[in-house]
């Protein structure tokens, strides 16, 4: 009882003494937890909302039947409706239509429309029914009526009774906004029409997107599903709601996991900060501990006291972090939307849900990290023999245990080993482990690096001393840095962690950006791209329009593209099929090919060539030379993978084939996109004028490849905005750590400064000494952080990205940015050291010489 109250008393007095450092440590933990928690909250909210929104569109069905090629013939509907065991079959035609008024916003100009049979849907997805005006109750079946969710109405700026124009192929059709939906999720942008009217107006006659099934009571879903799947064959797939959830989850999982990892990294930085704060505090209190040990405190009592300190700090920090994280998430969702601007969860407006379990998890992660950060330095302090501790100069030996190189070397080796391991569940778990291990190993080796670097300097300095050309200040600076490396490196560990992560992110983002930029140039070789809305499952340009386009004057070359979505695996998102003219002899002229490929002479004669994106290799095992079956027309057709191309546009996979092959196999002669190369004497204005004169010019969406490129990079930058934010926060935490360490050290060294003032060192000299120490340390930290960051960026670029997103990229170094950041870091570290140093020259340090510690 007495020991406990003594513990509390010691704790409180200690905290009073270093209030600021503690606040910073708590803030660091809080920030780390807050970031992690808010990202988790935002992601969960966005994912749940996205999932709920998808689910609300697919209703409460037991099973859903899809066509592998997207749309399928409606004759399946009566077959399924009368199938043994089926209680209700709900046919759905889902598609997007281009809103001509929104064409200027390139990636946001489509309205999702569901064609439903309200009598069937009423029992399957009652939320998706149109609510007509009181006096126009028949609108639910009208052929010209469309019902819009509140978000869609707001987006389109229409009200009940207004006319809405939509593009279909080369035409534009007018629909009457007949009302809203029974219930749409907030932000969900969707329209409902009668399925018959939709088939007719949007040229999907005879086609459906899916059929939702409700089974009779007592029918075993799994058995039924298997039987039906077998009967329907490869053209269709039968999915349960859980499959669909898996699909939705798959779509954004890599993004979500990577963002969470980044948040954990912030927490990790916080842990280093706690470590440095606690380590310094322990060093400072070694003699206090020794005294307590002499007074009869057991090792365990001491340990308990320190653990309790860490516990209280961690608990306060984590709780604050949860609160801040929740507010931050709420704010971010309000300002940036659920996907934080990255576009992974379009067309939804999520609301936060505070899950107690998640909150607990983040609380304990924060707490655990704090405990870890505070226990490591404590272990040594507790074991130390009191007699040794009470001697001056023993402060530095306090950390010798931690600077044994073996744990660090083991960390580094394990890290390097981890980079060679494959992903787990398509997630780069080992990649992130490698990053963590490299950071821990690298930072633990920091003292050694400091010894090497500053000893080298010290040797030079010693030479100067004998020649009498060195002043006392320089001597003290280098002697301290070279001979007290542990304290110095502890001060730096937080900023080292954050700086190396920032370097890593900066290198990764730039590498990615440059690679994307190069890729865009490659995949958008033409000057102009002209698209038309699909009409049904046909591309917008039919043969007539294609002929007209081919005959246009002023263009050097015109290519036609047929682009479609395919499902190869019901558990995965759709892949994209491009059919276009490809130069068989030199496919590299058309496609951004990478890695091995098959020469035209090696192609099997009975098969057709297929070029697949990197994701296809990872996700579907489409390696070069492999024979694969792709659904074209209504059949599975055999192709041979002859090359792999880089694709940053579609992380779920894409394949390219010859347009002629596609047309021969499918009898589909329509195309969606026309690529136009201008003749050298044609100006862009001329080209536009030529296109505007086309009879169907109103239905065309004309884009310059420059504009696409600019827009793509803009989207790229936006989606990385949140990572920049994380970087800045990590560095701020790191700088706070430096500030905390410096001020703690200044406090710890006040008798040193007192002595120096006695023997005639001026205030200015002490300040200069502190600033120089801070700068030099930071310089070393920047150098090492740079090395570590570079190593981490290699992991990010060559392991994390390919494993998460299935694309590779080339390394590019953002030198100017890195130098700028290093400069800012150096200046702010010196400033921090100077600020902390003001205490070192205050009058009371003179009295400090009388103190024993």
């Amino acid at each position: 009882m007495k020991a406990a109250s003594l513990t509390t008393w010691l704790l409180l007095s200690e905290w009073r003494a270093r209030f600021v450092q503690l606040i910073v440590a708590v803030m660091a933990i809080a920030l780390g937890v807050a970031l992690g928690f808010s990202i988790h909250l935002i992601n969960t909210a966005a994912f749940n909302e996205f999932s709920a929104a998808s689910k609300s569109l697919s209703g409460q069905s037991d099973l859903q039947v899809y066509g592998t090629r997207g749309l399928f013939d409606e004759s399946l509907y009566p077959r399924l409706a009368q199938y043994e065991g089926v209680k209700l079959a709900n046919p759905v035609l889902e598609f997007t239509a281009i809103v001509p008024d929104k064409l200027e916003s390139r990636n946001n100009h489509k309205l999702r429309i569901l064609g439903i049979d309200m009598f069937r849907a009423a029992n399957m997805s009652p939320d998706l029914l149109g609510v007509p005006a009181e006096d126009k109750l028949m609108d639910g079946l009208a052929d010209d009526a469309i019902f819009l969710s509140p978000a869609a109405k707001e987006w389109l700026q229409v009200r009940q009774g207004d006319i809405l124009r939509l593009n279909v192929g080369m035409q534009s059709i007018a629909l009457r906004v007949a009302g809203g939906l029974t219930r749409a999720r907030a932000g969900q942008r969707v329209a409902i029409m009668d399925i018959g009217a939709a088939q007719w107006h949007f040229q999907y006659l005879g086609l459906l997107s899916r059929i939702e099934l409700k089974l009779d009571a007592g029918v075993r879903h799994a058995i039924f599903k298997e039987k039906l799947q077998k009967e329907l064959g490869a053209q269709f797939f039968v999915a349960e709601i859980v499959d669909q959830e898996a699909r939705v989850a798959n779509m954004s999982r890599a993004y979500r996991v990577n963002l969470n990892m980044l948040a954990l990294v912030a927490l990790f930085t916080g842990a280093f900060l706690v470590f440095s704060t606690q380590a310094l505090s322990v060093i400072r209190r070694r003699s206090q501990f020794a005294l307590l040990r002499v007074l009869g405190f057991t090792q365990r009592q001491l340990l308990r006291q320190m653990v309790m300190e860490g516990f209280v700090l961690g608990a306060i920090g984590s709780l604050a972090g949860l609160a801040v994280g929740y507010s931050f998430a709420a704010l971010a969702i309000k300002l940036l939307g659920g996907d934080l601007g990255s576009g992974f969860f379009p067309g939804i407006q999520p609301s936060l849900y505070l899950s107690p379990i998640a909150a607990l998890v983040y609380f304990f992660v924060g707490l655990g990290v704090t405990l870890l950060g505070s226990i490591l330095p404590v272990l040594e302090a507790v074991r130390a023999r009191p007699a040794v501790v009470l001697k001056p100069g023993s402060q530095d030996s306090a950390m010798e245990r931690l600077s044994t190189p073996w744990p660090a070397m083991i960390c580094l080796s394990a890290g390097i080993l981890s980079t060679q391991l494959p992903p787990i569940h398509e997630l780069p778990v080992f990649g992130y482990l490698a990053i963590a291990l490299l950071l821990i190993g690298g930072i633990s080796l920091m003292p050694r690096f400091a010894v090497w670097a500053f000893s080298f300097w010290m040797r030079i300095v010693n030479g100067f001393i004998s020649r009498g050309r060195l002043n006392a200040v320089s001597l003290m600076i280098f002697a301290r840095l070279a001979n007290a490396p542990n304290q110095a490196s502890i001060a730096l560990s937080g900023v080292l962690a954050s700086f190396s992560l920032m370097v890593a992110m900066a290198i990764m983002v730039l590498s990615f950006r440059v690679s994307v930029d190069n890729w865009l140039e490659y995949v958008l070789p033409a000057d102009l791209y002209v698209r038309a809305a699909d009409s049904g499952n046909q591309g917008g340009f039919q043969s007539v329009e294609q002929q007209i386009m081919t005959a246009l004057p002023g263009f050097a070359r015109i290519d036609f593209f047929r682009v479609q979505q395919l499902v190869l695996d019901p558990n995965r998102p759709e892949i994209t099929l491009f059919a276009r003219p490809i130069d068989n002899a030199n496919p590299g002229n058309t496609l951004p090919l990478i890695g091995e490929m098959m020469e035209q002479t090696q192609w099997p004669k009975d098969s057709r060539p297929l070029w697949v994106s990197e994701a296809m290799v990872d996700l579907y095992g489409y390696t070069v030379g492999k024979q694969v079956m792709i659904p074209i027309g209504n059949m599975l057709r055999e192709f041979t993978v002859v090359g792999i191309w880089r694709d940053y546009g579609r992380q779920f996979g894409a394949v390219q084939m010859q347009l002629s092959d596609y047309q021969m196999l499918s009898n589909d002669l329509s195309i969606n996109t026309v690529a136009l190369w201008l003749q050298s004497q044609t100006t862009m204005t001329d080209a536009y004028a030529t296109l505007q004169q086309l009879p169907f010019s109103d239905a065309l969406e004309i884009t310059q490849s420059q504009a696409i490129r600019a827009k793509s990079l803009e989207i790229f930058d936006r989606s990385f905005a949140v990572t920049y934010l994380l970087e800045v926060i990590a560095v701020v935490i790191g700088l706070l750590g430096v500030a905390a360490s410096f001020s703690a050290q200044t406090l710890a060294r006040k008798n040193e400064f007192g002595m120096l003032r006695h023997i005639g060192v001026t205030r200015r000299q002490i300040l200069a000494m502190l600033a120089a120490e801070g700068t030099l340390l930071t310089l070393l930290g920047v150098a090492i952080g740079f090395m570590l960051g570079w190593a981490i960026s290699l992991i990010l670029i060559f392991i994390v990205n390919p494993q998460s997103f299935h694309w590779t990229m080339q390394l590019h170094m953002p030198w100017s940015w890195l130098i700028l950041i290093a400069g800012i870091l150096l200046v702010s570290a010196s400033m921090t050291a100077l600020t902390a140093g003001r205490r070192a020259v205050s009058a009371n340090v003179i009295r400090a010489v009388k103190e024993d510690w």
Partner: protein
Amino acid sequence: MQNDRYKQYIFIALILLAAWLAFPVSQLLAEGPRYKQVVPHYDLTFPQDYGAHPDFRIEWWYVTGWLETSEKKPLGFQITFFRPSTGHNPENPSQFAPKQLIIGHAALSDPAVGRLIYDEKTARAGFGLAYAREGDTDVKLDDWYFVRSPDGSYTTEVQADKFGLHLTLKPSQSLMLQGKKGFSRKGPDIEQASYYYSKPHLQVSGIIRHQGQTLTVKGHAWLDHEWSSELLDSRADGWDWVSVNLDDGSALMAFQIRGKNDKKLWAYAKLRDANGHEILFAPEQVEFIPVRTWQSPHTNATYPVEMRIRTDKTEWRLMPLFDDQELDSRSSTGAVYWEGAVTVFRDEQKVGRGYLELTGYVESLDL
């Protein structure tokens, strides 16, 4: 929310109502297709006219009757298939185009239960899943159907969650053309009319599923088949209708169209004896006189569940099998009416059994 759903479904009730009450039609179908009109002096031809008439806006096959279980317990039943046209653009080539709907209502009256057990279904005609065929009676709505065999008997099956009916109906008499040779006027305006024939005294046998049991039943039923494009006067508020299989082999059908303030707008009755001799009563000869009313605890509507019907000098007294035979489907299609099995007395003597239908007693029907 419940209210929202009610709103979407209510239009089905509206279709029915619009079929019976002329007023919304012109409004709804201002630019819609023109329907065939019911004209006098048209000769119904059979079996052609047993089948559907998609050129007309509304049509129904309506079977009501009394059943008896093997334990001699009485039950009433009603099976109706409506075929409304929707006014959807006739040029739409989509197979899903909802040009015609098929609506099914089925109900079972068991005094032991004390209230009507019913179910209903709606689907667009198409894909062979729901249809009303031309040529002979052949109506299908998923697993509900009503079919006439070449031998003249009808088979119908309705399987709802709570009950099921699988019945064969055999004619024992010739069919009965209502009105003048099947031209049945519904109001003072000659255009307010339908083609209308009845099949009284159908011999019913079959099985029903009720309260978890499968029961063999026998009984008598009455079939109406009626089609029209414009039925009721805009002043009409509702109607009272009754059909009776009299024990002596006679058949009586009577109805009145009520205007506002329960005033009689139009009335009709026809009595046919076992020998086929028919008496047609003029509107002023037919009177419906409420005797006892019952207020529905479900809808608060007040129905004259006990009636006296005067046809010229004869007075018929109707006693319900039980009071609560209200069909309240506001939670789904929105239709609310009273449709009940009644016992018929003349001069305090039980003379037959029939079905009484009372519509337009609920506020919300007044759309």
